[in-house]
């Protein structure tokens, strides 16, 4: 698929999303669809760092919640509109991403992952003790009437369709440029890549920043979506597991992998939440993750490639 073709598909997906929003089917479908699309953004963003560069980030909740809490701060301080929230949430998380990018100078592999996990808890403690954004008791948002579509469910759904398409397009263009090849080189062997003249530090900083940006973008509309945000919901460990599981299941080396993983696992979780229980759906994620990592380390796209190769 050429870049022009990809743009056509992207526009078609956004158009389809708007059309779907105009149909006004069962409101729950928009509500569930939002979550699945949010996971498309999260999984794609995680994969830019975790899949392309090979740095496993357990701190997804930190970035997601930073986006959400940036939005809350701006709502509280300036009553800022949604596009501003999304952009600001992304930028603040991108700064955090740049920070952990410098951390990669000292920390490789496992130690990097543990540090990101620690980062998430430190940030959560700070938020719990910061009363301006609600502190431990949480923040309640009273939504103004929605500017389009008449209700927030369909509006946020449409916004998420757009964000997911942008995130995937960016991931795809990174993957196919020299940046993607450089990241793949440092994933396979960082020292060798450095010796071959690949600017590893700059590439890693780029990957952590972009990844952080989109994780923050995914979190920024969250206060509008749930209308009540508390630290334990925004910093939920489920985001860390899902962000990791979705690309791992779909396949981490291509842009389509996280999308497949997020759509499959996200939809399965929504179905399981409705039909069984919300705890059961998390168990499913855990089991599927472990099974894939043990039995099919290259994910669904890897399996498909192997089948086609035969």
């Amino acid at each position, binding site marked *: 698929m050429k870049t022009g073709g990809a743009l056509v598909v992207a526009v078609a997906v956004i158009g389809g999303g708007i059309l779907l929003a105009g149909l006004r089917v069962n409101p729950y479908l928009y509500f569930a669809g939002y979550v699945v699309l949010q996971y498309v953004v999260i999984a794609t963003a995680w994969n830019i760092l975790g899949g392309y560069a090979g740095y496993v980030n357990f701190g997804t909740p930190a970035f997601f919640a930073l986006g959400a809490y940036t939005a809350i701060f701006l709502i509280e301080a300036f009553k800022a509109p949604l596009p501003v929230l999304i952009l600001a949430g992304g930028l603040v998380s991108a700064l955090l991403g740049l920070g952990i990018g410098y951390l990669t100078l000292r920390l490789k592999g496992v130690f990097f992952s543990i*540090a990101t996990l*620690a980062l998430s808890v*430190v940030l959560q403690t700070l938020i719990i003790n910061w009363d301006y954004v609600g502190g431990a008791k949480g923040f309640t948002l009273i939504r103004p009437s929605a500017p389009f579509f008449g209700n927030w469910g369909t509006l946020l759904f449409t916004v998420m369709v757009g964000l997911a398409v942008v995130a995937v397009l960016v991931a795809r263009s990174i993957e196919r440029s020299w940046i993607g090849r450089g990241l793949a080189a440092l994933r396979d062997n960082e020292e060798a890549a450095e010796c071959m003249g690949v600017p590893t530090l700059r590439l890693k900083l780029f990957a952590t920043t972009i990844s952080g940006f989109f994780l923050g973008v995914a979190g920024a509309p969250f206060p509008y979506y749930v209308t009540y945000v508390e630290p334990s919901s925004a910093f939920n*460990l489920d985001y860390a597991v899902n962000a*990791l599981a979705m690309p*791992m299941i779909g396949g981490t080396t291509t842009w389509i992998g996280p999308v497949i993983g997020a759509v499959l696992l996200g939809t399965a979780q929504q179905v399981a939440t409705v039909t069984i229980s919300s705890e059961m759906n998390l168990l499913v994620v855990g089991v599927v*993750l472990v099974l894939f*990592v*043990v039995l099919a380390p290259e994910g669904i796209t890897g399996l498909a490639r192997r089948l086609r190769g035969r």
Partner: protein
Amino acid sequence: MFSWDLLANAVVAGILLGGFYAAVSLGVSLTFGLLDVVNIAQPAFVILGAYAAYVMNSSFGLDPILTGLLFTPFFYVLGAVVYRIYYASFERRGDESLRGLVFFFGLLFIIEVSLSLTYGVDYRLVEAAYIGKSIDLGGVGIAFRLLVPCLVGLAMTLALYLFLSRTFYGRAVMGVSQDRVALRLMGANPVRIKTIAFGIGIAAASLSGALLITIAPVVPSTDRDYIGRVFAITVLGGLGSIGGTLAASIILGVAESLMATFFGPSWSLAVSFGILLLALAVRPAGLFGR
């Protein structure tokens, strides 16, 4: 607000807490520090041990620490099985570090969610004669529910130290962490040694879980708090050094206790993770690195 009494109490409580933290961290020190297996599921095994103690205590009135001891063989087998799976799927293929990390993360999640599906998310606690009693030493109160876990933790640390330095298998574990090939030349099978060591690491979780539920009530998600603590201690103690683990545990226990006393308990968790971040960023070899 400040008073010497408060300070003395906080420091003593912190030291006692540190003894317990050492018990929880030993498993990670052994599996991660010495064997290079990124076992971040260890805190989940600890919670599993805590629930075993809870079940035996509430249905048979068994002492939690005795239960912890009785369950060590089961945990040993569990650990050995987990290591065999890990070895067959990752170590043998040579891509252990990152995928292995994901494997253990998934395992942690499975254990935690299974526990909350089975026992719900209510706080669970145990009853024993010594819980709730304390002795007073000139204004400094020593609670038995902290003292007993601390003593057991110290005993566990000593036992592991003696095992690693005095016994054949213990020395083999030290050997496998230094040079796998040399160990093989000496006629020992590294995979077998690592299976034994990993089993011991998980068996330690059974006992430390019992200590955990003696100190405070437990919910399945308690393991998340301990990921940071345990790894902060292991890294700070210098990976795999048993004495270093004990020292780091006491440092962390005192730091957390002081923070909780003077700034409020909601900050105390940030101490461990803050120390971990600092240790990782400034001195990854730890205070007592080899």
